[in-house]
C-alpha cells in the first residue's frame, strides 16, 4: 500500500488527460449544440431560450425534412450497393483464393485506398463522371454517345456511385473477417449431409457471416448519412445532404439554433441505427466453438 500510494496521483493524471480531452472536445460541444438547438434565432445571432420551434421547423418545412429523407434514402442505397459489391468480393477472397499470400495481397489492395485522402478519392469521380471525363470520352470512342453527356455528374446518381466506391473497404473488412472465422468443416459437414453448395451458402455461410454484414451496413449507413464532401463535389443542386444543410446554417444562413437542432436530429438517427445494429448483432451472434 505504502509503495503504491505515491503513484496514484500520477496515474490519475495520466488517465485524466484523455478524459479531459473527451470532455472538452466531445461532451461539452454536444452539450453546447444541444443547448443552442432550443435558442431563438435573432439575425445575425441568437437569443438564449427554451422552445421547440427549431425542431418543429425541421418536420414542417419540406426543404428540411426532404433533405433528411433524401439523406436517409441515399445512405440506404449506398449501404445496399456496397453490400452487393463487397460480399461477393470478400467471399471470393476468403473461399476462392487458395494462396494465403495472394489473398493477403488482394485484401490489402482493397483496403489500401483508405490511406489515400478521402477528398482526393471523391474528387477522382468528378474527373471520371464529368463532361470532359473518362466515362464520356470512353462512351464516345465506342460510338455510343455523339457528344459528352452532362447526365453523369452533379446528381444523386453520381453521389451514390462515389460514396459506394469510397465505403466499399469499410464493408469488405468486417465481411471478410466474418467469413474467415467460419470453420471450413461446417461447410464440409453441410456437403456431407447432402446439401449442395448453393443451399449450403444460404443455410450456413450467409447466416454465420451476418455479423460482418451488419457491421458493414452500420458503418456505411452512418458514414454516408453524415457525409459532407460527396454532395459538395459531385452532388449538384438536388444532391444536398443533411450535413451540407447543417454547414450552411452555421455559415451563410447564420441560423445556429436550426443548425444545432438538425445536428441533434442527425445524431439521434445515427444513434438509433447503432443501437439497432448492436441489438441485431447480439441476437444473431453465435458461438463459433
Amino acid at each position, binding site marked *: 500500500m505504502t509503495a503504491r500510494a505515491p503513484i496514484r496521483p500520477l496515474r490519475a493524471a495520466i488517465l485524466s488527460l484523455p478524459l479531459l480531452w473527451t470532455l472538452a472536445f466531445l461532451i461539452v460541444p454536444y452539450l453546447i449544440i444541444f443547448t443552442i438547438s432550443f435558442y431563438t434565432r435573432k439575425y445575425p445571432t441568437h437569443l438564449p431560450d427554451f422552445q421547440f420551434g427549431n425542431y418543429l421547423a425541421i418536420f414542417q418545412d419540406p426543404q428540411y425534412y426532404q433533405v433528411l429523407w433524401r439523406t436517409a434514402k441515399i445512405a440506404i442505397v449506398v449501404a445496399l450497393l456496397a453490400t452487393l459489391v463487397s460480399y461477393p468480393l470478400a467471399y471470393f477472397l476468403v473461399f476462392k483464393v487458395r494462396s494465403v499470400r495472394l489473398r493477403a495481397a488482394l485484401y490489402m489492395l482493397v483496403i489500401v485506398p483508405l490511406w489515400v485522402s478521402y477528398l482526393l478519392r471523391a474528387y477522382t469521380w468528378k474527373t471520371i463522371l464529368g463532361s470532359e471525363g473518362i466515362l464520356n470520352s470512353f462512351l464516345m470512342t465506342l460510338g455510343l454517345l455523339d457528344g459528352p453527356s452532362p447526365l453523369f455528374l452533379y446528381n444523386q446518381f453520381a453521389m451514390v456511385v462515389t460514396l459506394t466506391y469510397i465505403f466499399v473497404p469499410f464493408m469488405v473488412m468486417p465481411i471478410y473477417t466474418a467469413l474467415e472465422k467460419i*470453420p471450413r*468443416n*461446417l461447410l*464440409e*459437414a*453441410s*456437403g*456431407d*449431409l*447432402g*446439401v*449442395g453448395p448453393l*443451399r449450403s451458402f444460404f*443455410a*450456413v455461410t450467409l*447466416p*454465420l457471416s451476418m455479423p460482418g454484414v451488419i457491421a458493414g451496413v452500420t458503418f456505411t449507413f452512418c458514414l454516408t448519412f453524415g457525409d459532407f464532401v460527396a454532395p459538395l463535389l459531385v452532388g449538384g443542386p438536388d444532391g444536398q445532404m443533411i450535413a451540407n444543410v447543417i454547414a450552411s446554417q452555421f455559415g451563410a444562413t447564420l441560423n445556429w439554433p436550426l443548425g444545432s437542432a438538425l445536428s441533434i436530429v442527425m445524431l439521434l438517427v445515427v444513434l438509433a441505427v447503432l443501437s439497432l445494429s448492436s441489438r441485431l448483432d447480439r441476437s*444473431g451472434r*453465435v*458461438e*463459433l*466453438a
Partner: protein
Amino acid sequence: MSNIVEIGGLRKTFAGGVVAVQDVTLAVREGEFITLLGPSGCGKTTILRLIAGFERPDRGRIALAGTDVTDLPPYRRQVNMVFQDYALFPHMTVAQNVGYGLRVSGVPREEIGLSVEAALASVSLSDKAQRRPHELSGGQRQRVALARALVRKPKVLLLDEPLSALDANLRAAMQVELKHLHERLGLTFIMVTHDQTEALVMSDRVVVMRAGRIEQDGRPAELYDRPRTLYVAQFLGTSNLLRGRVASTAGGRATIDCGGQRLSATVDGVALAVGEAVTLCIRPEKTVLAANGAASAEHNRLEGRLRETLFHGSTARLMVDVGQPDAFAVDVQLQDTTSAVVLPKSGDVVTLAVHPRNVAIFPAEAVA
C-alpha cells in the same frame, strides 16, 4: 458378404508435394467396423476425407456399394461423417442440426420431425432438442454429431477421431457405446484414430498405416499377436525390443545371441542368415518370472537385474536390466494377495522366462 467400399490404387498429394496417401488399396466388407490406425500424418484422415469426397485423389478409384463415386461431390455420396470436432452448426438448435440433412432430400416435414426425435432418442438427447450446440457438453455434442450422421441412413458411417476430444472416462464409455451401436445397426463403420486401445477395443478389423501406405491389415488379435513388422509391433501395445545376431537356425527355430544371452524364437517364413542382425520383440505380459514356476524347459531364460517395480493395481510391471539399451518390462498379475507372488526387490538378480513362440523376429531396421 459383399464389399461396401472398394478403394483401388489411391494416391493423394498435397500442395508442396507432400504425399499423404500412396497407392492404397482396401476393401471394406458390408457391416464391418474397420479402423485406420496410425500416427498423425500417416494419411489415415486423408483416406477418410477421400471417401467422404472432401478431397479428390490424384490417382485411383473409390467405389461405394459397387458404384464408382470417385468424381462425385460429397453431397452426392451416401456416406456420412462424424467430424473430429463435431462440426455442429452453431446457429441451429440440436433438432435443426439433426434434421438439416433431411430437409434438403425432400422428406415431408412431419417425417423429419419423427426421424429427428427418434435419432435424438437413440442417443438419449431428447430433452436437449431445443438447445444450441454451445450449451452442450463435449460428450453431448458428440452424440448430436452421431445422430445427425445416422439420421440420413448412410451406407457407411465415417468417424474421424470421434473420441479424441473427450476426457478419458467418457472416452472409455463411448468406445463401448459406439461398438454396441455398430452391432445394433449393422452399419459399416470406418473409423480413423491414433489411439491403439480404441482401435483394438472397437474394431472388427484394424488397418495400420505408415507414411501413406498400409503396413498391416487384420483382426485386432492377429495384429497384436502376429505383427508383420517391427513398426506394427511397436505401435500396438508395449514391446520389449532386444537387439542381437542370429547364432544358428534349425527346424523352424532360430537362436539369437543378444549381448551374451541366447534366446530361441519360432521362425515362420522369414529366411535368416547366421550372423544377421535382428531385433526381437517380446510382449511384457507374455513373459514370466522363472521363480514363479510357470516356465517349462522349453522356455527361454533371460537373466537381468531388477531396476524398479511399477505398481499398476491389478498388475505390477517389473523393469529389468537385461543388458539392452532399454529396460525389459515384465507384467506380473497380482490376482490373489494371500498366495502372493513373491516380487523381487530392486537390485535383485531375476530370471525371466518366455516361450519361443512369443518371441517375434524382425530384420534389424532403424527403430521408429
